[in-house]
């Protein structure tokens, strides 16, 4: 996969000055703070993380000693198999024949007309097997687990999408599977809980702390440290200790690699902007990463503003948090003045997480990506609009990215192009949306 990334073609298309100014200003403003970026022409792809897992000051390995050697073994295995033609061939075949890749890039003409600005293309990760981008990563990590001779898979899950994607690949490979899920999330994602059980996974309800995704991650880590000899921990996002943020990014980068080719085939040019929602940030980094050196492509990550950034009830660490250390890495966090992690809120369980992948923290600080926030009401409006205008029911997570497109597109010219990552389908959210409208399904 790295080889493909290293041979990307140069961006041949000129982009309006207004975007160029924004990007260059951003880089000039931030560049002095970041040692790795010596000048604005430095390539970003392949630059981070360093061999200790650092993305600038972010990332790293902040775990108890027992996990340090297993993490090194994981990294060694990952480095080895990434250069192993048999492994890559098996991964590619699974992505094509089991997941259904490549996923389409779809020009949403009706919605583009409705918004009256830039053309909007949707990267259809919702059409993957299991209904979201999560499976791109679980397929890859499960193949690693098999190569390492592990017989038991564990994972954490928030909305249940990563849990389902993990249970799916475990079923297929005949591996025992245990999924940790916060008690609060189990209550609001009953369908996904049942899906995981149908797939043969054991779903463990996590009753500690805030009983949501962050606590499920704590519990999965505790399981891993207790069962490291036979267990492989499939982390579902680009967070956690090194090598997870880099490994999950590399497995998800297929989204951006495909989109980069597809947009050139369909539109004959590169996009002007990319938009993706950011919880932990795996679908976003998957789309963004292959475009990082296409400096004329503006990049927007959309966090969950919940009830609004001013309300304090949100899940937007990049927009309204500050750096700290949680779950094995240094990154932006939602925390109080004593350094305790605070509870987050979002209508979408998949974005309801107090941290964010360290590479996003780094991209924010160097100014290569801009992070914005969309509140619950705006996301719900986008959910309904896309459903009615395009006949596509998006996940509430993805609806945050769509909602930002409704703000950005009208400020751009009709010749310009935005790619929005439609990271998952919304079937799992039907009950949540209906309940908000007072409808019993």
């Amino acid at each position: 996969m790295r080889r493909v990334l290293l041979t990307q073609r140069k961006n041949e298309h000129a982009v309006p000055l207004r975007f160029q100014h924004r990007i260059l200003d951003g880089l000039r403003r931030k560049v002095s703070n970041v040692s790795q970026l010596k000048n604005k022409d430095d390539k970003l792809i392949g630059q981070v993380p360093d061999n200790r897992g650092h993305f600038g000051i972010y990332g790293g390995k902040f775990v108890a000693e027992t996990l340090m050697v297993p993490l090194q073994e994981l990294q060694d295995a990952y480095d080895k198999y990434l250069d192993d033609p048999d492994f890559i061939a098996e991964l590619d075949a699974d992505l094509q024949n089991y997941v259904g890749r490549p996923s389409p890039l779809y020009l949403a003409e009706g919605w583009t007309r409705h918004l009256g600005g830039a053309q909007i293309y949707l990267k259809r990760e919702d059409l993957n097997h299991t209904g979201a981008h999560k499976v791109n990563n679980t397929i890859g990590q499960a193949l690693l687990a098999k190569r390492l001779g592990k017989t038991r898979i564990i994972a954490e899950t928030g909305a249940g999408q990563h849990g389902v994607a993990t249970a799916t690949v475990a079923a297929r490979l005949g591996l025992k599977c245990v999924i940790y899920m916060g008690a609060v999330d189990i209550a609001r994602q009953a369908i996904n809980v049942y899906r995981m059980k149908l797939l043969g996974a054991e779903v463990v309800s996590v009753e500690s702390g805030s009983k949501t995704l962050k606590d499920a991650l704590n519990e999965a880590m505790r399981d891993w440290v207790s069962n490291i000899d036979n267990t492989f921990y499939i982390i579902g996002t680009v967070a956690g200790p090194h090598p997870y943020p880099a490994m999950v990014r590399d497995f998800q980068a297929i989204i951006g690699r495909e989109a980069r080719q597809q947009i050139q085939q369909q539109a004959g040019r590169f996009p002007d902007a990319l938009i993706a929602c950011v919880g932990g940030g795996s679908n976003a980094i998957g789309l963004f990463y292959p475009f990082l050196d296409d400096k004329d492509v503006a990049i927007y990550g959309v966090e969950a503003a919940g009830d609004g950034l001013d309300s304090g009830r949100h899940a937007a660490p990049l927009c309204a948090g500050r750096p700290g250390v949680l779950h094995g890495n240094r990154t932006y966090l939602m925390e109080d003045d004593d350094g305790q992690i605070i509870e987050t809120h979002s209508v979408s369980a998949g974005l309801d997480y107090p941290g964010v992948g360290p590479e996003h923290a780094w991209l924010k600080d160097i100014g290569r990506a801009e992070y914005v926030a969309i509140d619950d009401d705006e996301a719900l409006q986008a959910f309904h609009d896309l459903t009615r205008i395009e006949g596509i029911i998006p996940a509430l997570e993805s609806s945050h990215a769509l909602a930002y497109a409704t703000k950005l597109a009208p400020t751009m010219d009709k010749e310009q192009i935005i790619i929005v990552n439609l990271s998952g389908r919304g079937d799992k959210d039907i009950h949540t949306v209906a309940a908000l409208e007072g409808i019993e399904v």
Partner: protein
Amino acid sequence: MSRIKNCFDKLKTRNRKALIPYVTAGDSDPTVTVPLMHAMVNAGADIIELGVPFSDPMADGPVIQRAAERALEHHVSLRDVLTMVTEFRQQDSHTPVVLMGYLNPVEVMGYTVFAEAAAQAGVDGVLTVDLPPEEAETLVATLRSQQLDPIFLLAPTSDDERIKLICEAASGYVYYVAIKGVTGAGNLDVQAVADKLEQIRKHTDLPVGVGFGIKDAESAAAVAAVADAVVVGSALVQKVEQAAGQHDRINAEIAGLLMQMRAGI
């Protein structure tokens, strides 16, 4: 000389092993802690490990997780813990106190501010569970500048290379985690511990404490036969939980268990 080194040197001349109890600061409420620290010293504790409550204690089992939750219900912060140590020092100037916790509260306070305040309060050592030596360079230097001992964990999975790295970064003592797991879990295999300690001692002259899985006088005695110090946490914290809110009962039950352990080691 550091209070911790002094403590181990004295024990050595008397051919005694150190008993190191752990309790979470502010559990079951903030007024419990300082009297409990004194009670533990009276019952035979040589060094006290004081847990700093954190919202996401990833390396801890359910017993210590719940202790942190009880303390956080009272909003016990790192600054509050330092205040407790200051208060403890008014009556006890010789028993070493080690803070054990997670990195984020220290990050938020700032390394320098924390180290100065900890030294001022009378803290002797700092163990940040989720900070391996690879990431600890700055904090270790900052702690040392205030004569605080950085304490590090060693695990069954640590190989020779890592043992060397960790022992070079540590001072005071090193803490061997006897089981692959979280605090309070499982039963330890004393022979396996003895083998690992032999491997560790090839790399360091620092005293080696052993913890995780020590539940009673018997397991404490077995570990003390091979280690320089016995660390007991969850077994004590469980007693705090059972007697939550009853200060005298907490002190009595914990002192009772420590005295049994002291007699056995």
